[in-house]
């Protein structure tokens, strides 16, 4: 019996995938399938070990290959492979004809501008009917306090409680942490607040250490991405909005629409990160 003919397609891949794609071919399986995307789990220690293959309409996750044409229907558990330059799902073979950066540098930002953006962001989030999944949760509060005081102990304690907390493919706790990590790293770098980046490094190490064992595979991969400052287009747009490079309101509006609570959880994490960067900057200044 002859194998079915291969269909070749091309798309735009996150540079986070470049290493996995260019290394030799490894087996993978379909973890989840939606009309707008397929998640593949690759048998590999390399992160991201979950790869999202999505159409242009879907959220552009930092571990995504975006394709122009509709994705053929596949069933969960189906065999796939990734490597030698291609992603293969069933008879479909995908190659990258474009690479995009899931963690573009924000460039220098005046901390005064960030300070002005915080109340705006807080008001927009508070006004939104989209609520975070862990509103009122103690660990979430602890995380915010720990971060703004640069208390590594309290921050890490809270973060460890939050990993995998909540229902769904990407639990609310993970989304919060991802937002926080990305904000600390990018806004800290942009505003020249070294302690925020330092905090991001430590939290990232703590959170990613055993993420694969504590949360869903896709969420673990997204935490690994966030640890490196890699985020979805919606999150990056909010960062640009905070930096005054685009409309914060429309960027935040788009982010809040994501998923059931995902967008609101990410936004909450970003807020905690932003406010920590501002608090830590005060600390940096006092130390000087």
């Amino acid at each position, binding site marked *: 019996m002859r194998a079915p003919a291969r269909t070749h397609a091309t798309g735009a891949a996150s540079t986070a995938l470049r290493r996995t794609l260019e290394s030799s071919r490894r087996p993978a399986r379909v973890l989840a399938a939606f009309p707008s995307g397929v998640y593949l789990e690759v048998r590999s220690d390399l992160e991201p070990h979950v790869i999202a293959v999505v159409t242009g309409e879907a959220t552009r996750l930092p571990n995504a290959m975006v394709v122009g044409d509709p994705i053929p229907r596949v069933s969960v558990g189906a065999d796939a492979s990734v490597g030698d330059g291609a992603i293969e799902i069933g008879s479909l073979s995908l190659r990258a004809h474009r690479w995009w*950066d899931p963690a573009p540098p924000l460039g220098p930002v005046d901390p005064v501008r960030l300070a002005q953006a915080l109340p705006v962001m807080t008001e927009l989030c508070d006004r939104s009917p989209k609520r975070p999944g862990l509103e009122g949760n103690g660990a979430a509060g602890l995380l915010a306090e720990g971060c703004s005081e640069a208390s590594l102990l309290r921050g890490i304690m809270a973060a460890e409680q939050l990993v995998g907390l909540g229902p769904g493919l990407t639990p609310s706790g993970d989304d919060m942490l991802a937002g926080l990590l990305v904000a600390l790293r990018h806004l800290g770098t942009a505003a020249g607040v070294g302690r925020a980046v330092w905090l991001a490094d430590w939290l990232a190490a703590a959170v990613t250490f055993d993420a694969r064992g504590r949360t869903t595979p896709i969420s673990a991969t997204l935490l690994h991405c966030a640890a490196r400052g890699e985020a979805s287009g919606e999150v990056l747009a909010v960062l640009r909005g905070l930096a005054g490079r685009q409309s914060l309101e429309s960027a935040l509006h788009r982010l809040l629409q994501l998923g059931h609570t995902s967008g609101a959880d990410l936004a909450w994490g970003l807020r905690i990160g932003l406010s920590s960067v501002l608090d830590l900057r005060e600390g940096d200044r006092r130390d000087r």
Partner: protein
Amino acid sequence: MVQVRTGTYHDSVSLMRVSQALSGLPGVEAAMVAMATELNRGIAAELGFALPACGPADLLVALRADDGTAAARAAAELDRLLSGLAVRTAGRDAAGHPPRTVRAALREAAGTAGNGGTTANGGTAAGAAGEGDATLVLVSVPGPHAFAEALDAVEAGLPVMIFSDNVPVEQEVLLKRRAEETGALVMGPDCGTAVIGGAGLGFANVLRPGPVGIVAASGTGAQQVACLLDLAGVGVGHILGVGGRDLSAEVGGLSTLRALEAFDADPATELIVLISKPPAPEVARAVREAVEKLATPVVTAFLGPGEDDLTAAAESALRALGAEPPAWPSWPAVSPGEEPSGGEGGPGTGAAAPGEAPEAGIGSSRAAAGRRTLRGIYSGGTLCAEARLVAGTGEFTDYGDDGYTRGRAHPMIDPALRLEALAAVPSGDVVLLDVVLGHGADPDPAARLAPAVAAAVARGVSVVAALVGSEGDPQGLAAQAQALRAAGADVFASNARAARHAARLAGAR
């Protein structure tokens, strides 16, 4: 058979593909399917077709076949190909009302964005206000009509890349002046290469994103530098083409200055590389002054006598970013009888690089026989000019020049003219040619070049190829290099090094 079809329009490149397909059918002596512009009517007349009255809005079909069967087959194939084009155009837009001008397209996009959030699919991110807004317009309509479409973009304050050539210079100046008022950027006209956010427009390579921004009045020049940087592991964020005339006295570098400013304001751009043929003196002064005011460092490559070549510019850029330039990849020719080393080992960056070891291999023995003529057979204008300067000898032809592309596809897509030229090179001479990979280029250039190269080598011609491509290019850099070297060409990733090597083979240096 000569036919005129009214009410049908297809772009010239699509029709060239149809013509090519028909010409290749058995029994077809000549085939031309084109819009009946003055130029195309002239070509058809030269081919000996008697034309009825027709104008640029009509589709002209001219076919000559050996017999009725062949003609009928060609006519059937023509209908199939044309209906394919029609389906493709219609299938684009689900609503069935594709916009007819750039202005209408902008208006549609704005209209959709204004209605915001009406998308039924709640699970996705699309549909929110501003999401659908275009960020860039790409115009490639025939030159005499490009102004209107480009002006739509400029008046809306949107960057526009004008791929079209034959746009009058006064229209270029007007567009660029208007762009200063509206905040737009005019890339072109005759801008063949741009990369925006990793997306290649026109002839462009698949590059890793990164800290370098390239401003280029020369498309292939930008491709060379970007590919070398990419091979060195340094990413290029964007290539802003400005059109070959931008740095002329008439245009005054208007787009170059704007592009420099835009990169300077872009937080992700850490280094700017400016590539152009030597500008008009007063423009060079203005550009230099502007560069001095920027906060972002600029590496300038004004290709001319006494200036850095493109490879040197790429190396300067790497050093400016604190990276040591690598040994540029090269792939020495496989001598007849010798087994080509497998593709696994990758390019011979170190040991057997022909540039490093000119005395080795097939080149040296013939070089001893005395001076040989160096013939540059190029598809990229800037690459051709660079090679001529670097080699300092030889006869160079740029087959991408307007004189050769009238009524036919660019040599990066259709190698026919270069293949003819290669076949005509007398035994004993040295051929230097460029092979450009990436979006827009021939999907497998080595497939048609390699047999011609092998034939030339068999006649005693030495062939040197500058292979301009990145590791991410769809043609596969390594595979193309292997195919060319297996045919007997010495292959270099650096055009300047290829030129030096070719000059040495010719006995000039």
